[in-house]
Every structure is written in C-alpha cells, then in structure tokens.
C-alpha cells in the first residue's frame, strides 16, 4: 500500500511497507541522502529530522505513522531563518571534522533554537545529548549554537 507523506512541504508518495523507517524511505526511495544512517536504533542522532517541528530519529519513525504530519529534513534547513543562522555558524566556526553526523546535529540544534532562542550552556548540552559526534567536535558545536543564538535568525 502506498503512503503519502508531507516532506519539506511536498506531498510524496511512498509505496513501501508501513513499518519501513522514514530514514530508509528518504534515502533509498526518494534519493534524499542528507539524512544519515548511524545506528538504526535511535542512539546516535545522525538521522535526526523534524516531525511537526520536533526533532525525531528518522531511523525509528515508521512511514505509516506520518499521516497528516509534516517532515522537514536537512535539505530544507536553509528555508528557515534559524536554519540559515546555524548553517553559517557551522561554517564560520569550522565545526566539523568528517561531517557525517552534522546533518543530525544541525536538525537537533534548529529544533532547540526554535523552542528556546537563547539557550544556556547547560540547555545546549542537555538538548544535544542524543547526538554523537565520533570526531568529537563538541566544543565547536557548543560555540556554533551559542553564536547562532546570539546573532539570531538570518532572513533570506
């Protein structure tokens, strides 16, 4: 049976088993490979997307659960002023080493700033606890989120 899912503002048809995780529908069905596979069991955060604006681990969100919901992925991060601020801060602070986890880090950070525009250092650590960076770019992730929060949203 085919499902219809709103992804980045477009209604997409997915002819897959309903229990297929959103991650694999994005990557292998729709060719949207910005969202990354890291662990498959919601432990690392590499696959983070937004579902109705809230950070979610797409490896553990079945396609069948998404009826009527809005999915946002890294490919659409630049469409939000907060997303643009974070992208710029990430480059300015040279946050990344390998960069593989960063889509998930950015999606989680943008969900944080959307609900808390001026997070404290403790709030940043707490909100980002679910995202592993194996290269351990953590000092710069902290700095980049603080910088984006300080500078505020960037209009297109």
């Amino acid at each position, binding site marked *: 049976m085919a499902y219809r899912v709103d992804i980045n503002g477009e209604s997409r048809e997915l002819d897959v088993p309903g229990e297929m995780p959103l991650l694999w529908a994005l990557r292998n069905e729709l060719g949207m490979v910005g969202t990354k596979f890291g662990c498959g069991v919601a432990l690392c955060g590499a696959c983070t997307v937004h579902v109705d604006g809230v950070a979610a681990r797409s490896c553990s969100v079945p396609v069948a659960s998404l009826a009527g919901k809005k999915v946002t992925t890294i490919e659409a*991060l630049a469409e939000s002023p907060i997303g643009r601020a974070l*992208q710029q801060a990430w480059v300015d602070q040279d946050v990344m080493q*390998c960069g593989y986890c960063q889509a998930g880090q950015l999606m989680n950070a943008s969900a944080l700033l959307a609900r808390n525009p001026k997070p404290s250092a403790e709030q940043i650590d707490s909100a980002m606890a679910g995202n592993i960076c194996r290269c351990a770019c953590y000092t710069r992730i902290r700095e980049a989120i603080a910088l984006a929060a300080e500078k505020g949203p960037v209009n297109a």
Partner: protein
Amino acid sequence: MLEQTILSRRTLIKASVLAGGGLVLTAAMPMVAQAAVGVDATPGVLNAFVTVHPDNTVTIVGKNPEIGQGIKTMLPMLIADEMDLAWDQVRIVQGDADARKYGPQIAGGSFATPMNWMPMRQVGAAARAMMLSAAAAKWGVPVAGLRTDAGKVIETASGRSATYGELATAAAALTPPDPATLTLKSPADFNIIGQAIPGIDSPRIVRGEPIFGVDTQLPGMVYAAYERSPVFGATLTSANLDAAKAAPGVRDAFVLEGKGGADQLVPGVAIIADNWWLANKAREKLAIEWNNGEWAGHSSQGYTAAAAAAWAKGEPEEDIVKTGDVAAAFASAAKTVEAEYAYPFLAHAAMEPMNCTALMHENGTLEMWAPTQNPQPGLMGVAQMLGLAPDKVTLHITRMGGGFGRRLTNDFMHQSAAIAAKMPGTPVQLIWSREDDLRSDFYRPAGFHKLRAAIDAQGKLTGFDDHFVTFALPQGAFNPAAMAPDIFPAKFVPNLRYAQTKLDTRVPMGALRAPSSNALAYVMQSFLDEVAHETGTDLPHLLLALIDGHEKEPDQRGGFTGFTAGFDPGRMRGVIEKAMAMGHWSTPAGEGRAKGFGFYFSHQGYFAEVVEASLSARKQVQVHQVWCAGDVGSTIINPFGALNQVEGAIIDGLGQATALAVEIEGGRVTNSNFHQYTLPRIAFTPKIEVEFIKSDNPPTGLGEPALPPVIPALTNALFALTGKRVRKLPIDTALFA
C-alpha cells in the same frame, strides 16, 4: 603498507595545455615503492595536479582520502600559497585512486603532512614560475621586474598585470622549471599557509548534499546486506536462502565463498533488494549453518587468564630490547615498584558504517565508489580477487564519515566487488549495519603488561622491566600492538628490558588512531607516575630528570615519509614545561579536584597534557579541563584543522579511558550497538586549551599524537584525587567506591 621507501625525491614537472585553453601542471616524483601488504609493488610517479582555467579559477586535486582530518583542504593550501593564489580562486576536486598519477594516497599514520609539505609547495612554486616566464615573454621584459599576487602577474614598474587565466595557455607551452631552481616562499611571506581556513566541503555538508560514500547514487542501483558469522574464522557449511529470497523487496540472495583472510573476503550470504532496510530485514529469514571451528571458545576473560599464566611462568618468549644489567639493578635496588596493567580491545565505530558501491560493467571493467583510507591496496586486492588486471578497476575515493584507521582495511571493498561481480550491469551498494560494524572490525589489540622498576638509594630509577603479553598476528601483517624497542623510557633508564609473550587468537586486529601509542602511553606514563610517587617527585619532574643530559638523536632520511627528525629531548622538555605552565602545575587544583600529567611522543609529534578531574557524587569521572602543549614543527598549516584534530583526539582518548571496551565471548564480539559502546557525548566535553610550540623542524602530522598522553593524564589525576591507581582500562569507578 607502511613499509614503503622513497629512494628519490627529485621532482619533475610536466605541463600540458587544456582543451579550451588553460594549463595542467603535473609534478612527477620518481619513486620506488616496496610492496604494500598483499599487493605487488607499483613503481610509480607522484603527480600533484593544478589546472588553471581561462576565468582565472584554479582547480587543485586533493589526492589523499578525506576522513575528517582536513587533508582535502590542507594539501591544496600548500600548492595555492606557493602559486600565489587568492583562496577564493581555488576549487578542489578529489583525485581517484591512481598510484601513477598521485603516488601514495593514504589517510593514516599522520603521514600526509611530512610526506607532502615540500612536494606540494614545489608544485605551486613551479606553476608560479611558469606564469612569471609567460608574462615576461608576452611583455618582452625580464622576469626580475615582475611579481605575483592573488593569481596575477604584475610588472612592478608599470603596474600592468595579467591574470594567470590569461597566461595559462602560453605558460603551458613552456618547459617546466627544474625544481632545484625553484625558490620557495619564506614563511614570513605565507598568506594561505597558517591561515584558519574552513573545510572546503563544509558548505555542502551543512546543506545535506550527497558527498559521503554511502550517499553514492547510480541509476538502477540496488542495495546489499551481508550476513557473515559473528564468530571470527568461521566457515559456512550450508545455507537455505528460500525464505529470504521470498521476503518483500528482495531481488536475490546468494552465498559468497570466502577468499583470503579476514581483510579480504569472509564467507557469507549477500541479500540484494531495492531498499537496504528490506535487504537487511531479510537476514532474519536466513537459515545458515556455520562451522565456528576451534576459535569459538575464545574470550576476553580467557586472554586475561592466559596473560596471568604467562606471567606466572616467569620468562617471556622473546626480548624486544635489553640494555645494561637488569637483574643486577633489581638485586641492588633500595626499592622496587611492581604493577600489572591491562587494556581492552577497542572498535573504531566511525559514524558512517562500512559501505561500498560497485558496478561491474558489461565489458568486464569494475568501477567502485569506496570510502577507503587506503585506496591503492584496496584496488589491487579487489583486482586480484576477481582476476582482473588493475587497470580494469576504477576506484573513486569518496569523502568518509570518519576512519580512525578502520578503513585502512578494505574487507568491505572485497565484499562489495564480489557481490557486484555476480550481477554485471547493475550497480550495487553494500551497507553494513551498526551491529555489523562493531562485530566485524579490526580491533585495537588488548594488551597486558607486568612492570617492575628498580630505584636506588638516591631515589634514581636504575632498572625497568616490562613483560608484555600480546597477540600473534598473521605472518607479515602490520602489527598494531607492536611495542617498539625505543618506546620511552628505553634509552633513558640504564638497565631496561622489554620482552613479550604472544597469545594465539583469531580476533582481527588493526590500526586505531595512534596505534600502539594509544595503549602504551597509558601503561608507561601511569607506571612512571607510580615511580615518581615512590621517589617523592612528580611525573613531569621525573621525566625532565630522565632526559637531562641526553642529546638529540640523528635525523633519518628515507622511510615512508622521506625524512624523520631524530628524537629530541629538547622538544620533549619544551612541551613538558609549556604544559606545566599552562596547567598551573605547581598550584593545587580546586576543592575536590586533582590534576594529572601525561607526555607522549608519537607520529613525530611531542605532546604533554595536564588533566583536571573530579568524581561526581555518584563516583562518575568528570573532566573539567585539559591543557595541551604540542610541538609538530615550524608551521601549523591550517590552525582550524589543527585545533579540531587536537580537541577531537583529546576527547577521543578520554572516551577510551572512561568507557570503551570491546568484549569477546564465544569467539565473537558481544557489543552490538552504541548502548554497549558508549562514545563520549557533548556534556562530557571538558574545556580544552591548546598551544603549539613552533620549533625549527619540518611540520609533521596531527591526526594522532595528541591522543595518547591524555589517557595517563586522566588516570594520574584520579590517583592524585583518590590514592587509587587505575591499572586497567576502561576505568572501573568501583575502584573509588
């Protein structure tokens, strides 16, 4: 693979004209390379590539694999600076695997900086010289009156100028200069080298563009999952594939016979589907009988018991190094210190699980998109496995989601190629699950050390003995546990023996960031901290006393990197004193906290680190701050990349010390996913302060040497805090209860 020898480093430079105008510059470095592991020698030439376009943009090939160490940005910086480009003119493309064009292409051993510092600069300087000559000919003036700036040649007197793009076609017709005649920039004139430049791919990564190996997409591509026995060394007896083949989305399933060792093709079953999740899920429906063989009884506990038995037996199997009269030193000692140390197997756990995309074309050529740190042996190994001539295999090197040494071994490439060979015309992407990744690694070897130190009546360390229990590796394999005979304090204690006993195993082992040093730094620097404590001093002062009066060792030419500066006690002293100053070593830590010290020399880098730590109310280790002093030579090429490597290495080491171990039971790894391999997370991150001493030595690499000393610095801090000595990693907090 790490044993190649460069016999000649005279660079030849060739030029050719691009279709449509422009210049392609090739630097050819004749070199003779000895055999890589399992691969025939490929005598080749090192080519670095510069293309000048008519619009005055310049494309530079990044030849080495990018695993997050910043090399795709850093090597082109060397060319661009000597060529006198503005960085915004530069475009960088990743070179394919090609030994003849690029020479060695390896992300490992912190080799890239020492190997490429001069050759890449010469490529840039030659290009600049050709632009000057072309402008001089065009204007009919001597080169002496010309200068270059930001991709232009300028006549100093008249102020007239021409862009490199305008000069490129004429420049390409010139005879390239003899590299011996090139004048390289004085460091004072560097305007790209030494600047903090963000990673060249970062803007694409923050937009989620396809860039990693697993992002490769080809028309008609299918996905593969691979089921192998979790027991190392197992063979496949029989497999019923019917149910898996009938699973949703599955196109095919087939058995692959093993070929070669664990680093080549292990036996297993490939499942092919239109979506990787469906292929992976169908593994549940496989019915496979494995012959687990004699290795299924092996366990971490068994190895620990075997080490104890080896020590109980007394004499090690063989000496690694022996100097002076160790027995006499202990017989006449006023005091002896003894301790047994152990550390576990570790996995690499790169964020991007192993994967590889392959397409066997209908004409019998193979094309691969491989996230590999070691592309040339991968290409050769795959060609050999399939009986193809190496020139029938094209290997595109992709950006990698981390490496840490895991992707130096190309088993996943062999699997992918073997699968693709069964389905000509269809591109296939093999992806491992995280569980596959943790259970099918080439692990940092566990190790066991029984140490003794002899201290004379004056409190001087006069004797040192280590009975190291390690593992026997397959013949000829790179030994990632190797204890070199000159590991500190060898040469600095008059009577010293390092000796070893080797245990049999089938656990695959490989290089993990700072191989051998990531374990030996802990053992040696912690045990020396014990010695310091027993002699009424502290570790940095003991280290300074041990090296006092020792001369720098002679430099060595040749070897894989061409030049190795001799070990310099002066550089060691420099970073030790710097770290002591940075970490306010003589000032006690605040209430409830303590400081510890560690020094290590590895990969030609000198690093001393001070850690300030405490225990939480629940006795969890908390690291508050790390002060790090490093000496990797005269120049920090890209301070952004450099700082990222050092900070990452420090947190990586702290994570290993506090939480990481791979457990073997029943001949297999029991860790399955990140809940059982708990990498450091953001809240664990301490404040990190880094300073580099710019010593008058050629620059060397930074991927590894900052990691080793942080582990003993932490365990030594915990001793200072609690009086309990951590003699086994990872730290068991029950010790502090």
